[in-house]
């Protein structure tokens, strides 16, 4: 029987006083262990029909190119034993170059870009690789604590091949000076796990006279090794 490794300790706690909105939005009763049966070890399969042309290129606006630093964001999706996760849907969303989201709730005084919606999606290829072209997002203020600023980040959503692997997270940029005061980043207790959220500048993948590049690999929970199982191909 397939069983995915418990990675509970890697994730931030649901109750984290530094992030005020967690106060009324975390369960207080103990979680009950859900055995991994068929529903938990399967997941929806999405194909090319979920994608439109240029869904992995966020720089193309209705009237022209989005403003900002053009970047390639690429990486490899694998399970924790190294096995690639092919053909899995990745959805991203982000603020524009000035740190403003195209969303009614975001009203801070930084301009919207008519050519930047901030949403993208793609499928990993047969070897688990993905690639987006986008604009480097800006940092933005929020009301969690005095003079609070979110470090620049891109939201990522992944399905993997099992309900247990479903992951929504955020990719950060290297050496962001705002990390020290960000409760979301600092809610992760394990330093190695925290580093997982930070992309690496990737000079090799830059394109001359076109775009800078960042590499970000994503690791999903893998299967527990069971001696009776066939080895993975």
């Amino acid at each position, binding site marked *: 029987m397939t069983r995915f490794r418990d*990675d*509970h300790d*890697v*994730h*931030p706690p*649901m109750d984290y006083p530094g*992030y005020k*909105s*967690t*106060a*009324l*939005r*975390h*369960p*207080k*009763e103990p*979680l*009950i*262990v*859900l*055995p991994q*049966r*068929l*529903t*938990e070890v*399967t*997941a929806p399969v999405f194909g090319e029909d979920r994608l439109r042309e240029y869904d992995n290129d966020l720089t193309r606006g209705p009237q022209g190119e989005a403003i900002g630093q053009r970047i390639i964001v690429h990486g490899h999706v694998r399970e*924790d034993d*190294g096995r690639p996760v092919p053909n899995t849907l990745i*959805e*991203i*969303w982000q*603020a524009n170059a000035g740190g403003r*989201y*195209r*969303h009614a*709730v*975001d009203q801070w005084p930084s301009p919207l870009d008519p050519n930047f*919606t*901030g*949403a993208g999606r793609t499928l990993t290829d047969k070897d688990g690789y993905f690639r987006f072209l986008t604009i480097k997002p800006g940092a933005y203020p929020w009301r969690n604590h005095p003079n609070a600023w979110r470090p620049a980040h891109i*939201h990522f*959503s992944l399905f993997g091949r099992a*309900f247990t692997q*479903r*992951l*929504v*997270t*955020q990719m950060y940029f290297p050496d962001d000076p705002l990390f020290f005061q960000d409760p*979301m980043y600092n809610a*992760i207790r*394990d330093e*190695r*796990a*925290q580093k*997982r*959220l930070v992309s690496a500048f990737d000079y090799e993948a830059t394109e001359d006279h076109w775009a800078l590049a960042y590499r970000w690999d*994503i*690791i*999903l929970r893998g299967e527990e090794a069971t001696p009776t199982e066939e080895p993975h191909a």
Partner: protein
Amino acid sequence: MITTPSQTVGPYLGIGLPWPDGPDVVPEGTPGRVRIHGRVLDGAGDPIGDALVETWQADPDGRFGTGFRGFGRCPTDEDGAWEVFTLKPGRVDAQQAPHIDVSVFARGMLNRTVTRIYFADADNAGDLVLASVPEARRHTLIAQPDEGGYRFDIHVQGDRETVFFRL
């Protein structure tokens, strides 16, 4: 290798996650299509208007991988209300009554919360997951029939807190 940790969906998930056909696990007009709906509420009993509810389930024969989409996704509105339109799942095996796995994502949740929907009018006897839940809280997992479908409220915290699972 250490896995990639979760982060909150934040307040702007509406940019990236909702799909026009998200709530339609099966399209309109599909025989047997039922509406499952409810509200997501916080520890003060106030609606969570910026959550996303996702559902994953077997087909009416209790099977996976049959071409049935099985997946639903709906952002909550300002009343915390969500809905999906689906076919009732079948019994997966002798130890599992018909059920739907649910993920809830929201601003203020650093990770998703996971629960399960069971049905008040199904035979829930012998279900190993329900049996593992304290009897007094079991009712929080059971959707009640109402007009044209089922109602399932999700209380993230408080006196009526829904049972959540660790995966």
